[in-house]
């Protein structure tokens, strides 16, 4: 550590790599915190945790007893244990007694991405409510046709204020805070929708995972989804291999503006830079010919299917039945650079998808069992190196590229539902069915001031 600081001082190590080294070292020493504790007032299992996106200071938790609480994780409310253990009590709690509070379990509680003045909760009582944080009042109410499993707001949104809500109904609904009404419904899934996530690279792209095992990508400016992920379409390696030059008469598939533009750019770069060969990583001995045929499966009108009713071209994707998992999709997470998507399914598999090519990268995460009935919340570090997954009663940290387990966090007494990683402080917060929120911090050296005080007038025996 000191050597690194000296190197940074002398200019041998760049600032970014120095910061990354410190962060990854701290990450590798994560353990149950012995100096920080969050006192949870909830009387039901904790279903959702989120740290606010602007300052990473306030933690919002939603529980099964219809209560929502906010904690300040940077400043403790009081100290115990002779000043060594910081207790963080909730700043405020909203529960069933509140006149406009939820009546049943809260499945999702998220902050308004711009600031902490608002937060949004979704509950099994079919309502999505928008709350004002300072007065703890309900500002807006949206009624959904079924239990709300997940709500999400885009962290990049500059021109819209839409809340995407996934419910047990087959349609995804977008609720608009600006107008107070449900502005859009996206259809295509064939069963309830357990997880909803916005893309971190575009404010218009939404990813949803359903109980039918499909993961769909939606561009909310158009009808229908433009991609359905298929677990059998895979690529060997982090990025797909460079495609061979296509035949001149290759037709672009009606896949949507984004994918078509990607194909145009790939073919242009191929024809332009044939000599400069950028060798792709990982054993890429296979040519992509086998994939080239399958790539155009979405959007192709079956030749013999003309007897079926004519669908709008954007809705053709509803007939695509590709599944990403053999069970329901219970968790989704888009990495912060927007290039990869992690999905957890009730078939106890976690898959890593390349967002641009839409393929399964075949990284095998060693999970034995995952929770199947409730959606789980995954967390990743900022430069996606580690992914934290709640596996039954433990939380496991996997290396995202090789799938090996780096760390296992065992501390909860019952199943863990959600985890949230704060990249600023390298702290992990986990909440589970045992009504506890546990904090996992990098280990801290005990400072000398601890021993000096009470030990002054005692003999220093060696036992």
């Amino acid at each position, binding site marked *: 550590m000191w050597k690194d600081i000296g190197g940074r001082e002398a200019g041998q190590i760049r600032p970014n790599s120095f910061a990354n080294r410190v962060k990854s070292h701290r990450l590798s020493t994560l353990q149950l915190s012995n100096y920080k504790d969050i006192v949870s007032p909830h009387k039901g299992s904790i279903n959702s945790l989120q740290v606010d996106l602007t300052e990473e200071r306030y933690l919002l938790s939603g529980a099964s007893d219809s209560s929502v609480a906010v904690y300040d994780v940077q400043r403790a409310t009081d100290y115990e244990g002779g000043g060594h253990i910081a207790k963080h009590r909730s700043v405020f709690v909203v529960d069933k007694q509140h006149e406009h509070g939820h009546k049943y379990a809260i499945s999702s509680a998220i902050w308004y991405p711009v600031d902490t003045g608002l937060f949004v909760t979704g509950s099994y009582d079919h309502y999505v409510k928008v709350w004002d944080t300072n007065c703890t009042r309900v500002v807006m109410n949206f009624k959904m046709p079924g239990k709300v499993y997940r709500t999400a707001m885009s962290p990049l949104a500059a021109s819209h204020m839409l809340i995407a809500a996934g419910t047990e109904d087959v349609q995804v609904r977008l609720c608009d805070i600006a107008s107070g009404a449900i502005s859009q419904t996206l259809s295509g899934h064939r069963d309830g929708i357990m997880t909803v996530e916005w893309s971190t690279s575009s404010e218009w792209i939404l990813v949803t995972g359903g109980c039918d095992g499909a993961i769909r990508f939606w561009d909310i400016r158009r009808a229908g989804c433009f991609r359905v992920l298929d677990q*059998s379409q*895979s690529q*060997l*390696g982090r990025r797909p291999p460079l495609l061979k030059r296509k035949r001149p008469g290759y037709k672009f598939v009606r896949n949507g503006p984004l994918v078509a533009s990607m194909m145009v750019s790939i073919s242009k770069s191929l024809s332009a830079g044939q000599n400069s060969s950028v060798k792709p990583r*990982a*054993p890429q*001995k*296979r040519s992509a010919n*086998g994939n080239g045929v399958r790539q155009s499966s979405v959007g192709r009108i*079956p*030749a*013999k*299917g003309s007897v079926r009713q004519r669908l709008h071209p954007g809705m053709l994707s509803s007939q695509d*039945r590709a599944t990403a998992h*053999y*069970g329901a999709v219970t968790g989704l997470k888009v990495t912060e650079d927007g290039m990869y998507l992690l999905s957890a399914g009730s*078939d*106890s*598999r976690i898959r890593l998808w390349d967002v641009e090519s839409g393929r399964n990268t*075949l*990284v*095998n995460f*060693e*999970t*034995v*069992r995952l929770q199947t009935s409730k959606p789980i919340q995954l967390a990743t570090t900022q430069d996606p190196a580690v992914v934290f997954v709640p*596996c*039954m*009663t*433990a939380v496991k940290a996997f290396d995202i590229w*090789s*799938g*090996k387990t780096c760390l296992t966090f065992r501390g909860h007494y019952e199943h863990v539902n959600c985890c949230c990683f704060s990249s600023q402080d390298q702290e992990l917060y986990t909440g589970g069915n045992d009504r506890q929120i546990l904090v996992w911090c990098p280990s801290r050296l005990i400072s000398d001031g601890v021993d000096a005080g009470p030990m002054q007038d005692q003999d220093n025996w060696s036992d």
Partner: protein
Amino acid sequence: MKNDTNSDSSKPKKRRRDEEIEAESSSSDRTLSLEENLTFSDTLVALRIMRAQFPHIDKVSIRPFILQSQLYSSVNDRTQVDRELESLRRERVLRVFKLNTGQDDHAIMFLDDYLNQIECVVKRMEEKKQVNLEVFEWFQTHVLDSKLEPSVGHEELVSGSDCSLLSIVGKVKDEHISLLINAGILTRQLIDPDMYWFAIPNIGSVLKGLSQGRKEIISFLNRRKYKEMMLALLEKKHLRFSPLDMRFHLRDLIGSGHLKTIHTPTGLVVQISKD
């Protein structure tokens, strides 16, 4: 000390006598203990060796298959296994089938073995004087070649046929597909009426033995005081309910995560994994 393959021999004389008795009664491929041969370097090597070690089952004539969980316990890096399997699948060296014995169970069979298995089924159907047997030929030459995934849709079967089957039959009709399902080569998917899984024919009793054998091993270990046992001793037990041998089951259970192996100074210990 005698040249024995087991590393834990604290009582040489007694073990020598045991080994002599073992060597007389057991078949030749038992001389390699599981402990020594648990991991391999490469997926293809692992597949070939496990295919050679496939137990001989008396009543059913079935070609060797390997479970995907067995591969995970045999090669250290699971991602490497997945990727090598994918490239072998694309090269048409082997096929992957989804089994219905549990979550995410897949069976891997070399393509030649699978074609042999289909041939046996076709011969048996010929003896029963079935008609429309050209479907099998079409299936082997065209469907297996173009559809590499474990599942196939109804539309793909029907529409993919007109390019190849016109000379033989005309069009693939429902009776052809029923014939394939009766032979055990295709199975309907429970979730989706339009999709079929590719399946290995005549494998039903073996799969039943597989799930019963798994349960037997897990319950045996659960009844022990510390839920663990030395691998060398566990290997030698005979299973009552499964025609497949102990080594097959152990590789499968270790790979799927139900059992874990711990290195101890006296050898490997197999333990039920909590979680």
